[in-house]
């Protein structure tokens, strides 16, 4: 008789199983790697040349390179986390997920862990290439704080992705358009290409709901000599806010997923395909 795992063992097995295609599958498809590095690099280069055309201080070039690397995470969360359940529905996998004797939370966590790992590799390449091409100089104030901020920002960001994934569960064709809409406006609000402090205080505060806003701001403060001068809030406060966002989004993801799953089953939207 085959032994069947359950409880935490099954949960962890599910996380690993769902993370596997994210890590291994994506490395096998070389074109994805190319596009995921090449596309952000194009934006980075274009915005760097804009700064050079208007004779901006060289540190702004570094801000753009860092923003471009973090953009890879946003794209990953947007297209491979938030809208993933919509893709799964389109391809007919969603019903299989629901029927399988494993937790949906574990599936989402696996997606997040795999996506985070694969995207980190790409972001490292973007930072490396961008820094080499545009001669960016870093003056890191504290590596410990820098990694802590990155970790908190990523946990909160992927928590947000897990939460929004459950909202996308109900959607059909509009999911594609809404994900599309969450690009340029978010690049603007989160300050991917300029310090967020330059926006109005309340706008910047409202944009802080997206973890990358404060994460990027704190990382710039810690990685560049002029960092503290361009910071929106102090690094310590930004880390506390990020920690709070981690808890809110992960708990929110759990609650919302349960609710949305029940709603989707009740309304018969799990297998619908409104093209």
């Amino acid at each position, binding site marked *: 008789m085959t032994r069947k795992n359950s409880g935490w063992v099954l949960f962890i097995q599910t996380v690993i199983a769902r993370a596997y295609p994210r890590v291994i599958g994506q490395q096998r*498809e070389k*074109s*994805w790697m190319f*596009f995921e590095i*090449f*596309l952000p690099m*194009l*934006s980075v*280069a*274009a*915005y760097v*040349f*804009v*700064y*050079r*055309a*208007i*004779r*901006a201080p060289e540190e*702004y070039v570094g801000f753009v390179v860092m923003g471009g690397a973090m953009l890879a995470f946003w794209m990953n969360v947007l297209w491979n986390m938030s809208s993933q359940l919509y893709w799964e529905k*389109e*391809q007919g996998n969603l019903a299989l997920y629901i029927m399988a004797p494993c937790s949906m939370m574990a599936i989402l966590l696996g997606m997040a862990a795999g996506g985070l790992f694969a995207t980190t590799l790409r972001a490292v390449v973007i930072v490396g290439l961008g820094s080499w091409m545009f001669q960016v100089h870093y003056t890191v104030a504290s590596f410990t704080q820098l990694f802590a901020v990155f970790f908190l920002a990523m946990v909160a960001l992927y928590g947000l992705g897990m939460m929004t994934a459950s909202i996308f569960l109900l959607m059909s*064709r*509009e999911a594609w*358009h809404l994900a*599309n*809409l969450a*690009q*340029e*406006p978010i*690049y*603007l609000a989160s300050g*991917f*290409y*300029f*310090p967020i402090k*330059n*926006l109005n205080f309340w706008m910047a505060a409202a944009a802080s709901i997206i973890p990358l806003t404060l994460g990027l701001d704190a990382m710039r403060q810690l990685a560049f000599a002029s960092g503290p001068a361009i910071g929106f809030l102090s690094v310590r406060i930004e880390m506390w806010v990020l920690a709070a966002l981690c808890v809110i989004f992960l708990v929110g993801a759990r609650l919302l997923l349960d609710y949305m799953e029940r709603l989707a089953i009740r309304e018969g939207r799990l297998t619908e395909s409104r*093209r």
Partner: protein
Amino acid sequence: MINFQLSTFNLQQKWRSFRMASWLGWQIESNWADPFLFAVYSIVKPLAGAAILVVMYTVITNGDYESPIFPYIYLGNAFYIYVGQLMTGISWAVIDDREHYKTLKYIYAAPIHFPTYLLGRGVARFLIATISVIVTIIFGVLFLRLHIDLAAVNWLLFVASVIIGVIMLALMGLILAGAMLLLVHHMWELGGAVAGALYLFSGAIFPLDVLPPFLRPIGYLMPITYWLELLRRSLVGSVAQAFPTLSGLNNAQLMGILLGLTALFALASLGIFHWCENKAKEKGVIDVITNY
């Protein structure tokens, strides 16, 4: 007589294909939301894209909107919306019909002219892009002191440039659509990659002189470079004199280069598209579903 009737039939067939594809494209692009949400969606994205550049510019120059570099960046970015929408839109129709709606084989087997059908699918994107461009420019004029003197605009040059540019972009889209016939579903990013590369090399948001010298020739080979320059000159003539890149060329010379490169792209697009189409038929991938 028979030849004349045949050519008339061909023209009618092409017009019908174009008209129906335009209608279909509009339905696909717009009927996923109510008109208000669709309008917001069509406007917010391009305005946010423009706002990123405006904030970057304002931070560095303390809001010196009188400098000629500002209209250069702003107008270049505004008209570049056409590139992303039109060129990518036409190529995207292949993926959309083949993989998403799974109707490409029926469309291909129907009595329509396939390349004309694909061009027609770009019309909806053209209309959306036109609204976005107009809104972006009006926003610049109203809120960012973008000076466009309607009496001083060279309307003839402007209209001619827009028409030639749209044709040129549609033909570039057809080249990409041909490539898409041979590529798998997840290569949908190809259109974005080409548009992104052209954004960088065509001097859309910064003068080509800013690029390293070894990259500039790429920009000089792209018709979009001359198209954007002509549009800027027609709307705000003074901008053209401020940057040395193309200041040695007058409007007629720029128009000549644009027409020449557009003709070249027209020949290339038809040749490449038919080659790709034949290759796709040989390989049996016209209706292949590669959705993974």
